[in-house]
């Protein structure tokens, strides 16, 4: 169970997240949509303290972190319960594809190297990159890099996977393979919080869709309700623009 209460984030005088409350059930797939610059990515980045929130509490399982006075150890513990997929992939440039998958398993989770390698092989197979395990990120296509990025998050077996605009930096030709992989991840009942501009994908993968505007959750509900019978006028206007 994941519980977020009163999450606030300010950049200078600008309030980007203005009190976010959200409960996420195990295995639930939530998609966040909304206009650019309304705090969608910031929400994800605040949940693992890549951007430290200014106020609010985040509970993942039996760990509750109060943003106002979070210790470095609490932040670390929170990050070890979450995984993050970056818009720009952010693979470790000095590690091969396989090492990108095993790095955290060995260094953070203290898994035996052989066990980590076995897990990496299984994931490479699942993401369709068994033959590219020894390649460095610079030698991989954008789509391949993002699949490794997703694989790295899968390997962690995290209680919550945060996925930040996974296809926004991709050439159109690679978007399909990345979205297909995320659909497969979702089938494993991985709890996910996804920010995306791909509305068709959102409709297919989401159990629940959140519409965020002005740093607040304006409307939330199952995809059918959000996309077919939107109530809030801002959501209606947003859907007209992107549809």
């Amino acid at each position, binding site marked *: 169970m994941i519980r977020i209460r009163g999450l606030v984030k300010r950049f200078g005088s600008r309030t980007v997240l203005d009190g976010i409350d959200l409960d996420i059930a195990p295995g639930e797939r939530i998609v966040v949509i909304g206009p650019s610059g309304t705090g969608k990515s910031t929400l994800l980045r605040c949940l693992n303290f890549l951007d430290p929130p200014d106020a609010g509490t985040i509970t993942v399982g039996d760990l509750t972190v109060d943003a106002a006075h979070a210790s470095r150890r609490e932040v670390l513990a929170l*990050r070890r319960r979450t995984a*993050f997929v970056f818009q720009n992939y952010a*693979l*470790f*440039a*000095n590690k091969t594809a396989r090492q990108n998958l095993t*790095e*955290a398993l060995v260094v953070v989770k203290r898994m035996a190297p052989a066990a980590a390698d076995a897990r990496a092989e299984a994931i490479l197979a699942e993401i369709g990159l068994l033959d590219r395990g020894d390649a460095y990120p610079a*030698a991989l296509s954008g789509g391949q890099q993002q699949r490794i990025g997703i694989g790295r998050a899968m390997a962690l077996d995290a209680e919550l996977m945060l996925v930040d605009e996974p296809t926004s930096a991709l050439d159109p030709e690679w978007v399909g393979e990345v979205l297909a992989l995320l659909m497969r991840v979702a089938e494993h009942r991985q709890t996910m919080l996804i920010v995306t501009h791909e509305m068709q994908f959102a409709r297919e993968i989401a159990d629940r869709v959140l519409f965020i505007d002005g740093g607040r959750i304006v409307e939330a509900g199952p995809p059918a309700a959000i996309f077919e019978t939107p109530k809030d006028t801002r959501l209606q206007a947003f859907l007209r623009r992107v549809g």
Partner: protein
Amino acid sequence: MVIDLGYMAGLVPVILRYVPLTLAMAVVAMAIALVLAAALAIVRVLKVPVLGGVVAVFISFFRGTPLLVQLFLFYYGLPQLVPAFRAIDGVTAAVIGLTLHFAAYMAESIRGAILGIDRSQWEAGASVGMTRLQLMRRIILPQAARVAAPTLLNYFIDMIKSTSLAFTLGVTEMMGAAQKEAAGSFRYLEAFLVVALIYWAIVEALSFVQRRMEIRLGRAFAR
């Protein structure tokens, strides 16, 4: 006066005998300086409280004063304050001086290289739950090392030449040997020319290695 080539030729093997000492001083000082510089750079980058300020002053002092002054302070000055330092011989004092001096310079190069690493690398490491030191050691430093390597090799070359200052602490290394020879024969030009040529040859050899290394580093992480 004409240059006595025969004298010069005879002097070459005499001076060459001191090349191992020169290289040994440089290699030992470089090895320790590298470790120290990396540590100093990390303390600076992570903005460690108190220690960060101490390191900043350390770096500022050793970059802000001439190496010769530092060596004299250390070898001739400090023993007046701390008698135990009298036990330190010239070679050791020179190595310690070179180490501290070059560590200060190299720390700034390494810090620059670390700060040049893309923010996404830090965020990726943080997102999988690495501590800052794990991130530094496993992800950031290996990438920064490749960026800084050519500059660090430059400092090594500079360091080899700077070992000649050990002569001023009474160490008979290449320069000291040449000085002694010249004092006997009064052929200063030939003696110092031989020293200059030998230093030049050593540095050229290293520059060749450096060029090769840069080509290799350019290809790094690309396959």
